């Protein structure tokens, strides 16, 4: 009896001790200590490349600036901000997540000279992270061009194929390649819990091309429903191009079961397993080492062309990393000014396996590591309009929820298109 009581006493004491220890951790605030902590989702070889840019930035500004990769970024950044432990600057891949946290942020209008900063940006980029209050909370430091269609060189030219200037020409080219005996397109979209985003990108491409940027923006804000002619037409255009049997390497179920990173592998095989694949420039990092070493020997690219009767001009759909500030002290301000300039990224762009493309039309294209990336950068800088990935701007419920899952259900034929679109509309949160 005596022994058991002292054991219990010990156990309770230890527990209480642990609880106190837990309380002892944490704390600490951010004042200007000449240190700037940047966190983001940039990962892998691209993050290694980015570190050189950060080191150069630290050297030129004299500020102790660091960049830390956070895996599972969307979740961690929310808990850090809610836990009152925000970084100085966070770089968001999704404007929707960024704007969710705007109450804890500093509006960039109040920190930097916004008009000068955004003057030379590619049209459409500076307004991506503008909140309801009309203030800008985030600007891109790097972008990617999702509208890039890759083709194998020299096989594409050798076969006598011409780069299409319109959707009709693209469909004709698709038919021509198919008739020549190779599946024209590479496409697959399995992405674990995020399965479906690659399909939503395609839908966005065609809403932007068929409806034009204004309609696109209204659709992103749900002023135009999913269950509307323009979205339906966009989905059907994609379906006709990619999902028609024989138009792609895989069938519908196969696309949903094959990882998206493997999707464009047949394109760089010899002989090519397909002749076209639409994916942002970061796809280069997924190809075999010999392709990464000198992509211009294996691939080249064109932008997904305009649709007849739709937006008159070259539209580019893309994504990007948007930097937002959680305080406005002098060090943070200096770093923000350095991040948002056409000079930013010149070191980053020259590292092996980087994914950097500058948001500035005035960026020096000769700084890109290869002619392949330079071609993408140049094409984007000449685009008539740039629109940010729409699903990233929609409420999480839709943009990283029902839009993904419903499109997956539609492509794998578990639902009709009408059903899927109606379900997405139903899931849109009531303000």
């Amino acid at each position, binding site marked *: 009896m005596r022994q058991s009581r002292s054991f219990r006493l010990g156990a309770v004491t230890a527990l209480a001790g642990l609880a106190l220890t837990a309380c002892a951790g944490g704390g600490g605030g951010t004042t200007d200590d000449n240190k700037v902590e940047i966190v983001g989702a940039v990962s892998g070889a691209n993050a290694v490349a980015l570190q050189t840019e950060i080191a150069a930035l630290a050297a030129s500004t004299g500020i102790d600036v660091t960049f830390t990769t956070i895996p599972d970024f969307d*979740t961690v950044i929310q808990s850090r901000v809610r836990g009152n432990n925000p970084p100085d600057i966070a770089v968001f891949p999704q404007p929707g997540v960024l704007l969710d946290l705007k109450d804890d942020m500093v509006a960039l209008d109040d920190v930097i000279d916004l008009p000068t900063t955004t003057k030379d940006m590619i049209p459409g980029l500076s307004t991506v992270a503008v909140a309801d209050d009309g203030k800008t909370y985030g600007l891109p430091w790097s972008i990617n061009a999702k509208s890039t269609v890759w083709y194998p060189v020299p096989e594409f030219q050798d076969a006598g194929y011409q780069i299409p200037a319109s959707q009709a020409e693209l469909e004709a080219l698709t038919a021509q390649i198919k008739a020549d005996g190779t599946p024209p397109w590479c496409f697959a979209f399995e992405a674990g819990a995020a399965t479906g985003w690659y399909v939503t990108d395609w839908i966005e491409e065609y809403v932007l091309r068929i409806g034009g940027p204004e309609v696109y923006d209204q659709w992103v804000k749900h002023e135009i429903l999913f269950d509307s002619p323009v979205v339906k037409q966009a989905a059907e255009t994609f379906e006709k191009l990619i999902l028609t049997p024989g138009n792609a390497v895989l069938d519908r*179920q196969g696309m949903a079961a094959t990882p998206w990173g493997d999707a464009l592998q047949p394109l760089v095989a010899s002989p090519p397993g397909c002749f076209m694949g639409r994916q942002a420039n970061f796809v280069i990092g997924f190809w075999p080492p010999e392709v990464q070493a000198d992509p211009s020997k294996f691939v080249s690219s064109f932008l997904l062309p305009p649709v007849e009767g739709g937006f008159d001009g070259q539209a580019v759909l893309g994504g990007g990393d948007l930097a937002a500030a959680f305080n406005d002290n002098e060090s943070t301000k200096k770093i923000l000014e350095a991040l948002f300039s056409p000079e930013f990224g010149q070191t980053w762009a020259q590292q092996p396996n980087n994914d950097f493309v500058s948001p500035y039309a005035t960026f020096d294209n000769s700084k890109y590591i290869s002619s392949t990336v330079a071609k993408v950068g140049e094409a984007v800088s000449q685009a008539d309009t740039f629109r940010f990935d729409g699903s990233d701007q929609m409420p999480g419920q839709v943009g990283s929820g029902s839009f993904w899952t419903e499109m997956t259900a539609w492509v794998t034929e578990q639902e009709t298109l009408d059903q899927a679109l109606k379900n997405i509309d*139903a899931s849109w949160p009531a303000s």
Partner: protein
Amino acid sequence: MLKILNGILAILGGVGASLALFWLMNFAVERLPSKWSERLKPWVFAGPAVLFITIFLVYPAVRTIVISFFDKRGENFIGIDNYTSLFGDSAFHNTILNTLLWLLIVPAFAVATGLLVAVLADRLGPKAEKGTKSLIFLPMAISMVGASTIFRFVYEWRPAGDPQIGLLNAVWTALGGEPQVWLQQSTGRLNSLLLMVILIWMQTGYCMVLLSSAIKGVPEDTVEAARMDGANEVQAFFRIVVPQIWATVVTVFITVFIGVMKIFDIVYVMTGGNFNTNVVALAFFKELFEFSNDGRSAAIVVILLIAVTPVMYYQVRRFKAEEAMR
């Protein structure tokens, strides 16, 4: 280095301070008149524990219930809107249905297979019994995510014509079938069933170990007596052994049942809730961390809480009944 030192100091300080606190309170109570001392003494030791449970368990539970009546950011009261929108959402209906299927199928199968293995292993020689049991217990030691990764390979699909590296498709094609994308086959909830197999595979070992020791605790003479009276093996098992281990069976069943209610990892890793395989815990996770909707996620938790309560109530009552029997 400084951090480690800090940690050690904090642990020493924390443990020391709480030791001192208990000692002081005990000291003070012992000074009281003996009647009061007797009355208060249990609270000196139980009190802090009750306090901690209140702070870390009761308060969050109450807070969750309150938040479930608030909006996305947990700021404005919106009544039962979260609940009405959840129950009006066809995707959530599916989620509930899936969770129910998990709850019906997994504990039953895990206990049944565990019992079967325990009984059969009991008849082997000591060495073979040990070997078999260790093998079957092994999956228990793997994390859910690890087990899911293993089964991803089992269910792996490759286009027809390519070598099938997935076990299931390899067997299927060897028998003359077309390679199937198993995790997308939601007809008859086949894909959900395939996911349940993973958990049953993991939990069978746990059920087996507990049931096996219960079976070994059944007095041999009761079974002998039944045999003498002419009972066959099946009758002896169901009429003599099972009633005597029934308490263990129920406990094991409820433990697995409660584990299944929280099932998340397997579905998250294997399908991400796509193709009609979503479950309640994953729906909650998505609402909170991906859609940052505090109110809706709290509402899902409350629904889960209400669903668990009867099981808890039953379990507590049974414990009390057992205590009373001793």
